[in-house]
């Protein structure tokens, strides 16, 4: 029984989860500078450590897990015309919402346009949900196509903005892609902005959520069911009186 539960729990632990804030270094919290608190679950409801990823392009950036422990996972940004990281005093967001959403990475310069790609590597095998926050940091309407080539479906999702303020809304503030990782492979999140874009596209951050595989979940459920069953039997066992 306990062995069953242990097997289930160990299988559930496969796959790692991450919170990532594309973060401006220096400046005020209302401009988004700094990372959200570990208690902030954002749209995925996933509390834990937030990695602050700055403006570095072309370097593998190591990612810590939700407990803040080092992992083998990395993200590397490649861009043909990066627009840098900036912050905007969008008054609708406060606290952790502002820290996540009020600073963002500009996909490309407005005049020239270009493609920004985030490549995540070194993740453990498993099923993942990838939350990409792509609301324009100034609270503007700016349809942003988030393309995840390795997604199992809905590879391109368009996040429109404008930010509602201290709230998250699917396809308004973020997209959600399902990705399956096996054999040490990674996945990419890519955004292309055409030239002469009026206000530009910005990416605020990511949440990578490890999803329990059905097999693992059923093993865990089986273990729990046996556990509950044993407890029930113990409660209803007749008391033997000694003569």
């Amino acid at each position, binding site marked *: 029984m306990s062995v069953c539960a242990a097997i289930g729990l160990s299988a559930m632990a496969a796959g790692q989860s991450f919170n990532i804030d594309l973060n*401006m*270094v*220096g*400046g*005020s919290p*209302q*401009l988004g*500078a700094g990372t959200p608190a570990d208690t902030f679950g954002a749209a995925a409801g996933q509390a834990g450590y937030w990695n602050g990823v*700055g*403006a*570095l*392009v*072309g*370097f593998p950036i190591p990612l810590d897990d939700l407990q803040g422990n080092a992992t083998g996972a990395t993200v590397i940004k490649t861009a043909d015309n*990066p*627009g*840098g*990281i*900036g*912050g*905007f*005093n969008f008054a609708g967001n406060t606290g952790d919402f502002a820290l996540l959403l009020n600073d963002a990475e*500009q996909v490309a*310069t*407005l*005049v*020239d346009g270009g493609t920004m790609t985030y490549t995540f590597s070194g993740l453990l095998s498993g099923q993942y949900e990838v939350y990409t926050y792509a609301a324009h940091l*100034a609270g*503007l309407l700016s349809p942003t196509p988030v393309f995840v080539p390795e997604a199992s479906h809905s590879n391109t999702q368009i996040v429109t903005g404008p930010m509602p303020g201290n709230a998250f809304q699917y396809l308004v503030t973020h997209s959600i892609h399902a990705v399956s990782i096996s054999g040490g492979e990674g996945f990419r999140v890519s955004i292309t902005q055409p030239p002469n874009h009026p*206000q*530009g596209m910005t990416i605020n951050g990511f949440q990578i959520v490890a999803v329990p595989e059905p097999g693992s979940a059923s093993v865990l459920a089986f273990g729990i069911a046996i556990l509950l069953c044993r407890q029930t039997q113990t409660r209803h066992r007749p008391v033997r009186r000694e003569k």
Partner: protein
Amino acid sequence: MNNKCIAAAFFAVGLCSVATAQFGLTWSAQYNGTANGQDRGRVVAVDKQLNTYVAGAAAETGSGIDMVVVKYSPAGSQLWRRLFQP
């Protein structure tokens, strides 16, 4: 809004900010040269359309330290950048 732009060196990136009349920051932007080295903002100007120009030096891949001019929109988006090799 009183546009007052401040150029500052911020580790490896240049920082330009537009301040309101109350000196509350409206936006902030950081430029990072492709070599991820030390970049410096030196000169700032604002035109009549409230676009902001920052000139400085940036570490760029393959060319060492270049002179760079970056133009930002009134909302702080990077409109373009141009590099000049000294």
